[in-house]
């Protein structure tokens, strides 16, 4: 068919191949005004196909009575019942507070350490490549391994960290880091930061390599100091990368109970109880999927608000 048309269209002469050449057709397609939507189509379809139903299902659960170990009455619409219960649930408020502490401290430490490491590595010092690999390696560990190894190292009986601290005189005797409410959260944050700061290092490092050197040369001539350069050139140039990294990391910290599940399970006495852990417990040991769904929706909304505010404030999408 296309062959016949190609033959008929005399001036300008087009070869048969040209007419059906997918590359040419794509090229022409790329000049249409719908091109960007076409580019988004495959990923959007994939995400929708897999995630749409589970997400809608989760929202629906939060308005439904769904206690798997109490089949009678399951599936009934209960309106805002779960949300009302949440308002009066002291464990929810405690978890919310703990989540805020957990996320804020983790993200600040991870970002600052990650940035400092990336800036230092970017100076391309001799031996820097080896140091880079050493610094980035914690991020490669699965949570299972990182969590359990730190649990062993911090153990109050056989933990090497205690032994070192006692030997150098910082501690009088072995300390049970996760049994003391004053140190449990801080220690968990330390382990989390140790595991994840390379996320920022790697991203910022890759971003730094994209900043034209001329900018710094010009700043040098203008007499701008190191901190001024950081504030005026580096951070603005990395704006979107940092914003993306912070948002993604915050989502990860809020939603994933992995590490705390291994280290403390929310203890001692709920002092490290966070929302993700609370939702997990509600779903898989109390089997109250309705309430767990409502908790998830609250986490979702909080994250949504955070991301929206952060995108507005950091001006990610300004050209």
């Amino acid at each position: 068919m296309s062959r016949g048309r190609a033959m008929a269209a005399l001036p300008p002469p087009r070869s048969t191949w040209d007419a059906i050449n997918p590359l040419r057709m794509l090229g022409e397609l790329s000049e249409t005004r719908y091109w960007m939507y076409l580019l988004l189509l495959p990923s959007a379809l994939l995400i929708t196909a897999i995630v749409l139903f589970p997400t809608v299902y989760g929202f629906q659960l939060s308005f439904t009575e769904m206690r798997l170990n109490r089949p009678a009455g399951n599936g009934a619409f209960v309106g805002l019942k779960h949300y009302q219960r949440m308002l009066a649930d002291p464990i929810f408020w405690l978890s919310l507070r703990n989540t805020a502490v957990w996320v804020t401290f983790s993200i600040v430490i991870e970002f600052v350490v990650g940035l400092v490491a990336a800036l230092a590595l970017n100076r391309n010092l001799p031996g820097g490549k080896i140091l880079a690999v050493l610094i980035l390696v914690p991020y490669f560990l699965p949570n299972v391994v990182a969590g359990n190894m730190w649990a062993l190292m911090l153990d109050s009986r056989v933990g090497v960290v205690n032994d070192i601290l006692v030997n150098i005189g910082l501690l009088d005797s072995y300390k049970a880091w996760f049994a003391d409410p004053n140190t449990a959260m801080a220690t968990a944050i330390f382990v989390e930061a140790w595991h994840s700061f390379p996320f920022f290092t790697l991203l910022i490092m890759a971003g730094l390599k994209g900043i034209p050197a001329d900018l710094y040369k010009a700043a040098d001539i203008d007499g701008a100091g190191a901190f001024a350069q950081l504030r005026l050139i580096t951070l603005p140039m990395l704006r979107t990368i940092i914003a993306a990294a912070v948002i993604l990391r915050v989502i990860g910290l809020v939603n994933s109970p992995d590490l705390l599940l291994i280290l403390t399970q929310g203890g001692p006495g709920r002092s490290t109880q966070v929302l993700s852990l609370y939702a997990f417990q509600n779903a898989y040991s109390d089997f109250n999927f309705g309430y767990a769904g409502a908790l998830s929706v609250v986490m979702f909304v909080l994250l949504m608000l955070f991301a929206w505010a952060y995108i507005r404030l950091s001006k990610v999408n300004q050209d």
Partner: protein
Amino acid sequence: MTAKFDRRSVLKLGGGMLAASALLPHQAFAQQTAINYWHTFTSQSEAAGLQAVLDLFKAAHPDVAVTPENIPNPEFMAKITAAVVGGSRPNVTMVASERFEDLLAMGALSDMTDRIAGWERRADFDDKRFASITKDGKTYGVPGFTFVDWGYYRKDWFDEAGLAAPTTYDEFRDAAIKLTDASKGRFGFGLRGGPGGQNFVVNVIEAFGSPVKKEDGSIGLDRDIVIKALDWYAGLLVKDKAVPPSAANDGFQQVISGFQTGQTAMIWHHTGSYQDIASKLKPGVEFGTFAMPAGPATRVARLAYAYNCITNDENADAAWEWIKFWGEPDAAVAFLEKTGYMPASTVAAQDERIVGNPMYKAAADTLGFGIPQPSFPGAAGWAQNTVLPALQQILIGQATPDQAADQIIEGLAAAIA
């Protein structure tokens, strides 16, 4: 072994060749029924025990092919829940006593009453063994093996101090206090206040005379008794200082390693950890075992079972063959030899390898007076998410026994509402 090799390999070879030529699956020719078996065996010894039972079963039942599927214990309920809700259940599932009520309410289990009634080995089992898997006259599984609650004590330290293994809570507390020696870094009791410690709190409360639930299903917890029980139990740390200060985060691994390394004089656990303790300390010389001491009101020592249950109506006959097989003395003893886990069958439990070992005497005694855990839908979640944090809060000084008792009672009311 050789005979089995011959017959089976010939069958297999013939079947394989035919299957290859006709492009038919091998099972079709051998008329094998495939079933899968979900379990939570993880450690090396457990894996070896399961393999031993599988091998014996394979020889006895060439017509049934069992595919074991191991699932980590912490995520077991999540995985089985997804399978039940998603409609792809396994044929046979290993169900711990404490999970029975939740799974039954979820509709995961099939009624096995008639099959069990007609089973030729039913008489090998005490009726009590089925108590934690029976509801409203219907039985839903067969016990595969038993965990018997007991304690371990440092025999050498006890001998040195002229003490005998405790039989009551008072003796227990006295021994714990006497054997505590801060200068040596020794504590009398390794209290499990971290993950998994919840069940012992419930035991102590019941031993003080306050059952969790009454016969009619209403809340049996008496506030005053709960307070007394918590005061005594947590008091071992906060008043008597006879417990390591790390107790609030001490789970299984910490408690066991504390005992193994000579930090603690006594711990409570069940028979499942015997091999592990015996690998570090000399049985009968350095350590001994004791039945759970009697509380002021009653003696509470739990018998927990791992039941095998039919969870899918398809291939139920083959599933039943596999479940029954765990009741064979040969299988139970082969399993015991690899794992140290007690058989559930009375006949198997009388095997010389168990009766002849004095270390198992405490467990054998406990089989007589031991009782099942309180069981109702939501029990496991309540114990884990309410009772344990309440205990921890006393241990770390964030709550008084009164406040903790209120949390526990209110939590129970919410759980069974």
